Protein backbone atom coordinates (compact mmCIF):
# COMPACT_ATOMS: atom_id res chain seq x y z
CA UNK A 1 0.00 0.00 0.00
CA UNK A 2 1.56 3.32 -1.06
CA UNK A 3 1.45 6.26 1.35
CA UNK A 4 -0.38 8.52 -1.09
CA UNK A 5 -3.13 6.00 -1.80
CA UNK A 6 -6.45 7.40 -0.72
CA UNK A 7 -9.91 5.97 -1.00
CA UNK A 8 -11.81 7.91 -3.64
CA UNK A 9 -14.97 5.84 -3.70
CA UNK A 10 -16.60 3.50 -1.30
CA UNK A 11 -18.78 0.57 -2.21
CA UNK A 12 -22.27 1.12 -0.95
CA UNK A 13 -25.64 -0.56 -1.07
CA UNK A 14 -28.47 1.09 -2.99
CA UNK A 15 -31.74 -0.13 -1.47
CA UNK A 16 -34.84 -0.80 -3.56
CA UNK A 17 -37.54 1.85 -3.29
CA UNK A 18 -40.97 1.96 -4.88
CA UNK A 19 -41.85 4.99 -7.04
CA UNK A 20 -43.66 7.74 -5.15
CA UNK A 21 -47.11 8.33 -6.62
CA UNK A 22 -49.45 11.00 -5.29
CA UNK A 23 -52.61 12.80 -6.37
CA UNK A 24 -52.54 16.24 -4.75
CA UNK A 25 -55.47 18.65 -4.32
CA UNK A 26 -55.34 21.97 -6.17
CA UNK A 27 -54.83 25.24 -4.32
CA UNK A 28 -53.71 23.60 -1.08
CA UNK A 29 -50.43 22.73 0.64
CA UNK A 30 -49.82 18.98 0.83
CA UNK A 31 -47.03 17.13 2.59
CA UNK A 32 -45.53 14.36 0.51
CA UNK A 33 -43.60 11.76 2.48
CA UNK A 34 -40.36 10.77 0.76
CA UNK A 35 -38.60 7.39 0.97
CA UNK A 36 -36.76 8.20 4.21
CA UNK A 37 -39.80 9.67 5.95
CA UNK A 38 -38.86 13.33 5.36
CA UNK A 39 -41.55 15.55 3.89
CA UNK A 40 -41.84 17.77 0.84
CA UNK A 41 -44.36 20.60 1.20
CA UNK A 42 -46.01 21.08 -2.19
CA UNK A 43 -48.54 23.75 -3.05
CA UNK A 44 -50.38 23.15 -6.27
CA UNK A 45 -51.73 26.23 -8.04
CA UNK A 46 -55.49 26.61 -7.88
CA UNK A 47 -57.87 26.94 -10.84
CA UNK A 48 -58.26 30.67 -10.12
CA UNK A 49 -54.59 31.33 -10.95
CA UNK A 50 -54.07 33.35 -14.16
CA UNK A 51 -50.87 32.26 -15.99
CA UNK A 52 -50.85 35.23 -18.37
CA UNK A 53 -49.05 37.66 -16.02
CA UNK A 54 -45.32 37.19 -15.61
CA UNK A 55 -45.03 39.40 -12.54
CA UNK A 56 -47.82 37.56 -10.72
CA UNK A 57 -45.91 34.36 -11.44
CA UNK A 58 -42.68 35.76 -9.96
CA UNK A 59 -44.54 36.99 -6.87
CA UNK A 60 -46.21 33.60 -6.38
CA UNK A 61 -42.82 31.85 -6.61
CA UNK A 62 -41.24 34.26 -4.10
CA UNK A 63 -44.09 33.88 -1.60
CA UNK A 64 -43.99 30.09 -1.76
CA UNK A 65 -40.23 30.06 -1.27
CA UNK A 66 -40.52 32.26 1.84
CA UNK A 67 -42.99 29.76 3.34
CA UNK A 68 -40.77 26.76 2.53
CA UNK A 69 -43.26 25.47 -0.02
CA UNK A 70 -42.64 24.10 -3.48
CA UNK A 71 -45.16 25.73 -5.80
CA UNK A 72 -46.24 23.56 -8.74
CA UNK A 73 -48.35 24.12 -11.85
CA UNK A 74 -48.13 26.20 -15.02
CA UNK A 75 -46.86 29.62 -13.90
CA UNK A 76 -46.80 31.43 -17.21
CA UNK A 77 -47.85 31.06 -20.85
CA UNK A 78 -47.38 33.52 -23.71
CA UNK A 79 -48.59 32.34 -27.10
CA UNK A 80 -48.01 35.64 -28.90
CA UNK A 81 -44.23 36.00 -28.85
CA UNK A 82 -42.57 35.11 -32.18
CA UNK A 83 -40.38 32.01 -32.12
CA UNK A 84 -36.68 31.99 -32.93
CA UNK A 85 -37.48 30.37 -36.30
CA UNK A 86 -39.91 33.16 -37.18
CA UNK A 87 -37.38 35.82 -36.19
CA UNK A 88 -34.73 34.25 -38.42
CA UNK A 89 -37.22 33.68 -41.29
CA UNK A 90 -36.25 30.02 -41.47
CA UNK A 91 -37.54 27.86 -44.29
CA UNK A 92 -40.40 25.47 -43.46
CA UNK A 93 -38.63 22.57 -45.17
CA UNK A 94 -35.62 20.87 -43.54
CA UNK A 95 -32.41 22.54 -44.77
CA UNK A 96 -31.02 19.18 -45.91
CA UNK A 97 -33.89 18.79 -48.43
CA UNK A 98 -33.52 22.21 -50.10
CA UNK A 99 -32.56 22.07 -53.79
CA UNK A 100 -29.24 23.51 -54.88
CA UNK A 101 -31.02 26.38 -56.62
CA UNK A 102 -32.27 27.59 -53.23
CA UNK A 103 -29.07 27.26 -51.24
CA UNK A 104 -26.53 28.38 -53.86
CA UNK A 105 -26.74 32.01 -55.01
CA UNK A 106 -26.82 32.36 -58.83
CA UNK A 107 -23.79 33.65 -60.76
CA UNK A 108 -25.53 37.03 -61.13
CA UNK A 109 -25.61 37.46 -57.33
CA UNK A 110 -21.85 36.95 -57.17
CA UNK A 111 -21.48 39.40 -60.06
CA UNK A 112 -23.47 42.03 -58.15
CA UNK A 113 -21.33 41.65 -55.05
CA UNK A 114 -18.14 41.89 -57.10
CA UNK A 115 -19.49 44.98 -58.83
CA UNK A 116 -20.19 46.65 -55.47
CA UNK A 117 -16.63 45.99 -54.37
CA UNK A 118 -15.00 47.53 -57.46
Amino acid at each position, binding site marked *: MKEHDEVL*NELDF*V*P*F*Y*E*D*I*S*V*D*LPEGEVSE*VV*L*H*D*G*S*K*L*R*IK*KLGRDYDPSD*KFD*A*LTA*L*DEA*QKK*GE*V*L*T*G*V*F*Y*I*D*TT*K*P*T*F*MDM*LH*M*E*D*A*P*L*ATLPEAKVRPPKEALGEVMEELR
Partner: protein
Amino acid sequence: MSTTVTPPPRKVNRIGFEVLSYKGAKTTLCAGCGHNAISERVVECFYEMGVQPWNIAKFSGIGCSSKSPAYFLGLSHGFNGVHGRMPSIATGAMLANRTILGIGVTGDGDTASIGLGQFMHLLRRNLPFIYIIEDNGVYGLTKGQFSATADMGSKLKTGVINDLPPFDCCALALRCGATFVARSFSGDKKQLQAILKAAIAHNGLSVIDVISPCTTFNDHEGSTKSYS
Protein backbone atom coordinates in the same frame (compact mmCIF):
# COMPACT_ATOMS: atom_id res chain seq x y z
CA MET B 1 -64.96 -29.69 -29.30
CA SER B 2 -62.54 -26.92 -30.05
CA THR B 3 -62.80 -23.31 -29.00
CA THR B 4 -61.37 -20.36 -30.88
CA VAL B 5 -59.60 -17.80 -28.76
CA THR B 6 -59.69 -14.34 -30.24
CA PRO B 7 -56.79 -12.14 -29.17
CA PRO B 8 -57.87 -8.83 -27.62
CA PRO B 9 -57.75 -5.92 -30.07
CA ARG B 10 -54.44 -4.04 -30.11
CA LYS B 11 -54.60 -0.80 -28.21
CA VAL B 12 -53.24 1.91 -30.46
CA ASN B 13 -53.23 5.70 -30.56
CA ARG B 14 -54.81 7.92 -33.21
CA ILE B 15 -51.98 7.24 -35.70
CA GLY B 16 -52.09 3.48 -35.15
CA PHE B 17 -49.06 2.98 -32.89
CA GLU B 18 -48.90 0.88 -29.75
CA VAL B 19 -47.36 2.37 -26.61
CA LEU B 20 -44.35 0.08 -27.15
CA SER B 21 -43.29 2.33 -30.06
CA TYR B 22 -42.73 5.15 -27.56
CA LYS B 23 -40.72 3.21 -25.00
CA GLY B 24 -36.94 3.01 -24.74
CA ALA B 25 -34.35 0.79 -23.10
CA LYS B 26 -34.71 -0.57 -19.56
CA THR B 27 -33.66 1.99 -16.98
CA THR B 28 -30.35 1.67 -15.13
CA LEU B 29 -31.21 4.41 -12.59
CA CYS B 30 -31.84 3.61 -8.92
CA ALA B 31 -35.19 2.01 -8.05
CA GLY B 32 -37.64 4.68 -6.95
CA CYS B 33 -35.71 7.53 -8.68
CA GLY B 34 -38.08 10.29 -9.74
CA HIS B 35 -36.40 10.43 -13.15
CA ASN B 36 -37.95 7.04 -14.04
CA ALA B 37 -41.43 8.39 -13.32
CA ILE B 38 -40.72 11.38 -15.61
CA SER B 39 -39.63 9.04 -18.43
CA GLU B 40 -42.90 7.12 -18.04
CA ARG B 41 -44.89 10.35 -18.34
CA VAL B 42 -42.99 11.31 -21.52
CA VAL B 43 -43.84 7.92 -23.06
CA GLU B 44 -47.52 8.25 -22.12
CA CYS B 45 -47.88 11.82 -23.36
CA PHE B 46 -46.30 11.35 -26.77
CA TYR B 47 -48.30 8.12 -27.21
CA GLU B 48 -51.59 9.69 -26.16
CA MET B 49 -51.05 12.78 -28.31
CA GLY B 50 -50.20 10.61 -31.32
CA VAL B 51 -46.88 12.19 -32.25
CA GLN B 52 -44.90 10.20 -34.82
CA PRO B 53 -41.80 8.91 -32.98
CA TRP B 54 -39.46 9.67 -35.89
CA ASN B 55 -40.62 13.28 -35.91
CA ILE B 56 -39.16 13.78 -32.43
CA ALA B 57 -35.55 14.59 -31.53
CA LYS B 58 -34.41 14.17 -27.93
CA PHE B 59 -31.37 15.90 -26.49
CA SER B 60 -29.50 15.78 -23.20
CA GLY B 61 -26.26 16.75 -21.50
CA ILE B 62 -24.49 14.86 -18.73
CA GLY B 63 -25.81 13.48 -15.45
CA CYS B 64 -28.31 10.93 -14.16
CA SER B 65 -31.08 13.00 -15.75
CA SER B 66 -29.29 13.12 -19.08
CA LYS B 67 -29.12 9.33 -19.22
CA SER B 68 -32.90 9.13 -19.15
CA PRO B 69 -33.63 9.85 -22.86
CA ALA B 70 -32.30 6.33 -23.45
CA TYR B 71 -35.32 5.07 -21.51
CA PHE B 72 -38.04 6.63 -23.68
CA LEU B 73 -38.81 7.20 -27.38
CA GLY B 74 -36.49 4.50 -28.67
CA LEU B 75 -37.55 5.15 -32.30
CA SER B 76 -36.79 8.89 -32.14
CA HIS B 77 -33.64 10.80 -33.03
CA GLY B 78 -31.30 11.50 -30.13
CA PHE B 79 -28.12 13.36 -29.24
CA ASN B 80 -26.33 13.15 -25.88
CA GLY B 81 -24.25 16.31 -25.74
CA VAL B 82 -21.39 17.67 -23.68
CA HIS B 83 -22.09 18.69 -20.04
CA GLY B 84 -24.30 21.80 -20.04
CA ARG B 85 -24.10 22.30 -23.82
CA MET B 86 -27.34 20.66 -24.85
CA PRO B 87 -29.14 23.98 -25.63
CA SER B 88 -26.74 24.99 -28.42
CA ILE B 89 -26.81 21.52 -30.00
CA ALA B 90 -30.60 21.49 -29.85
CA THR B 91 -30.81 25.02 -31.27
CA GLY B 92 -28.70 24.02 -34.29
CA ALA B 93 -30.72 20.87 -34.91
CA MET B 94 -34.06 22.60 -34.55
CA LEU B 95 -33.05 25.41 -36.91
CA ALA B 96 -31.88 22.89 -39.49
CA ASN B 97 -35.21 21.07 -39.39
CA ARG B 98 -38.20 22.92 -38.04
CA THR B 99 -40.56 20.02 -38.77
CA ILE B 100 -39.03 18.11 -35.84
CA LEU B 101 -40.47 18.30 -32.32
CA GLY B 102 -37.57 18.75 -29.89
CA ILE B 103 -37.38 17.63 -26.27
CA GLY B 104 -34.39 18.11 -23.99
CA VAL B 105 -33.83 16.43 -20.63
CA THR B 106 -31.31 17.95 -18.30
CA GLY B 107 -30.52 18.12 -14.61
CA ASP B 108 -30.00 20.89 -12.08
CA GLY B 109 -26.21 20.55 -12.41
CA ASP B 110 -26.34 20.49 -16.20
CA THR B 111 -28.64 23.54 -16.29
CA ALA B 112 -27.88 25.71 -13.25
CA SER B 113 -24.09 25.27 -12.96
CA ILE B 114 -21.95 24.35 -15.97
CA GLY B 115 -24.78 25.00 -18.44
CA LEU B 116 -26.18 28.20 -16.93
CA GLY B 117 -24.89 30.42 -19.76
CA GLN B 118 -26.39 28.16 -22.42
CA PHE B 119 -29.67 27.95 -20.50
CA MET B 120 -29.96 31.76 -20.31
CA HIS B 121 -29.45 32.17 -24.06
CA LEU B 122 -31.96 29.43 -24.82
CA LEU B 123 -34.50 31.32 -22.67
CA ARG B 124 -34.15 34.58 -24.59
CA ARG B 125 -34.52 32.92 -28.00
CA ASN B 126 -37.95 31.31 -27.63
CA LEU B 127 -36.89 28.23 -29.57
CA PRO B 128 -39.88 25.87 -30.00
CA PHE B 129 -38.51 23.22 -27.66
CA ILE B 130 -39.47 21.32 -24.49
CA TYR B 131 -36.79 21.73 -21.82
CA ILE B 132 -37.27 19.41 -18.82
CA ILE B 133 -35.10 19.93 -15.75
CA GLU B 134 -35.03 16.81 -13.58
CA ASP B 135 -34.25 18.70 -10.38
CA ASN B 136 -32.96 16.82 -7.33
CA GLY B 137 -30.47 19.34 -5.93
CA VAL B 138 -27.48 16.99 -6.18
CA TYR B 139 -24.92 15.56 -8.59
CA GLY B 140 -26.07 11.95 -8.25
CA LEU B 141 -23.72 10.57 -10.91
CA THR B 142 -20.65 11.80 -9.00
CA LYS B 143 -21.95 10.62 -5.63
CA GLY B 144 -24.03 13.46 -4.30
CA GLN B 145 -22.36 16.88 -4.22
CA PHE B 146 -24.66 19.94 -3.92
CA SER B 147 -25.93 21.48 -7.12
CA ALA B 148 -26.88 25.13 -7.60
CA THR B 149 -30.55 24.40 -6.89
CA ALA B 150 -29.86 22.88 -3.44
CA ASP B 151 -31.62 24.84 -0.70
CA MET B 152 -29.50 26.91 1.64
CA GLY B 153 -28.96 25.13 4.93
CA SER B 154 -29.56 21.65 3.54
CA LYS B 155 -27.16 18.94 4.62
CA LEU B 156 -25.36 16.17 2.76
CA LYS B 157 -25.20 12.64 4.14
CA THR B 158 -21.58 13.39 5.01
CA GLY B 159 -22.71 16.30 7.22
CA VAL B 160 -21.60 19.11 4.86
CA ILE B 161 -24.04 22.05 5.00
CA ASN B 162 -24.90 24.15 1.95
CA ASP B 163 -24.22 27.83 2.70
CA LEU B 164 -25.15 29.16 -0.75
CA PRO B 165 -28.60 30.33 -1.88
CA PRO B 166 -30.20 28.33 -4.72
CA PHE B 167 -31.12 29.37 -8.25
CA ASP B 168 -34.82 29.09 -8.96
CA CYS B 169 -34.85 27.83 -12.56
CA CYS B 170 -38.50 28.83 -13.04
CA ALA B 171 -37.85 32.40 -11.87
CA LEU B 172 -34.86 32.59 -14.23
CA ALA B 173 -36.98 31.27 -17.08
CA LEU B 174 -39.66 33.88 -16.37
CA ARG B 175 -37.18 36.75 -16.19
CA CYS B 176 -35.26 35.75 -19.32
CA GLY B 177 -38.08 35.19 -21.79
CA ALA B 178 -39.40 31.60 -21.77
CA THR B 179 -42.98 31.54 -23.01
CA PHE B 180 -44.14 28.47 -21.06
CA VAL B 181 -42.89 28.01 -17.50
CA ALA B 182 -44.06 25.24 -15.17
CA ARG B 183 -43.02 23.15 -12.19
CA SER B 184 -44.20 19.74 -11.11
CA PHE B 185 -43.31 16.87 -8.83
CA SER B 186 -42.19 13.57 -10.38
CA GLY B 187 -44.68 11.61 -8.29
CA ASP B 188 -47.69 13.70 -9.31
CA LYS B 189 -48.61 11.74 -12.42
CA LYS B 190 -51.79 13.61 -13.26
CA GLN B 191 -50.27 17.09 -13.05
CA LEU B 192 -47.03 16.20 -14.83
CA GLN B 193 -48.95 14.56 -17.67
CA ALA B 194 -51.15 17.61 -18.14
CA ILE B 195 -48.14 19.96 -18.12
CA LEU B 196 -46.20 17.81 -20.60
CA LYS B 197 -49.14 17.65 -22.99
CA ALA B 198 -49.55 21.42 -22.82
CA ALA B 199 -45.81 21.81 -23.52
CA ILE B 200 -46.02 19.51 -26.55
CA ALA B 201 -48.82 21.71 -27.91
CA HIS B 202 -47.00 25.00 -27.16
CA ASN B 203 -45.22 26.75 -30.06
CA GLY B 204 -42.28 28.25 -28.17
CA LEU B 205 -39.85 27.41 -25.41
CA SER B 206 -41.38 25.32 -22.61
CA VAL B 207 -39.36 25.08 -19.41
CA ILE B 208 -40.58 22.42 -16.97
CA ASP B 209 -38.75 22.13 -13.66
CA VAL B 210 -39.62 18.74 -12.16
CA ILE B 211 -38.72 18.13 -8.52
CA SER B 212 -37.40 14.59 -8.60
CA PRO B 213 -36.05 13.36 -5.25
CA CYS B 214 -32.82 11.35 -5.39
CA THR B 215 -33.30 8.14 -3.43
CA THR B 216 -29.59 7.58 -2.91
CA PHE B 217 -27.87 10.91 -2.18
CA ASN B 218 -30.56 13.43 -1.39
CA ASP B 219 -33.31 11.72 0.50
CA HIS B 220 -32.59 12.00 4.17
CA GLU B 221 -33.36 14.32 7.02
CA GLY B 222 -31.84 17.70 6.29
CA SER B 223 -31.54 17.06 2.58
CA THR B 224 -32.51 19.68 0.06
CA LYS B 225 -35.92 19.22 -1.58
CA SER B 226 -37.22 17.60 1.58
CA TYR B 227 -38.31 19.07 4.88
CA SER B 228 -38.35 16.88 7.94
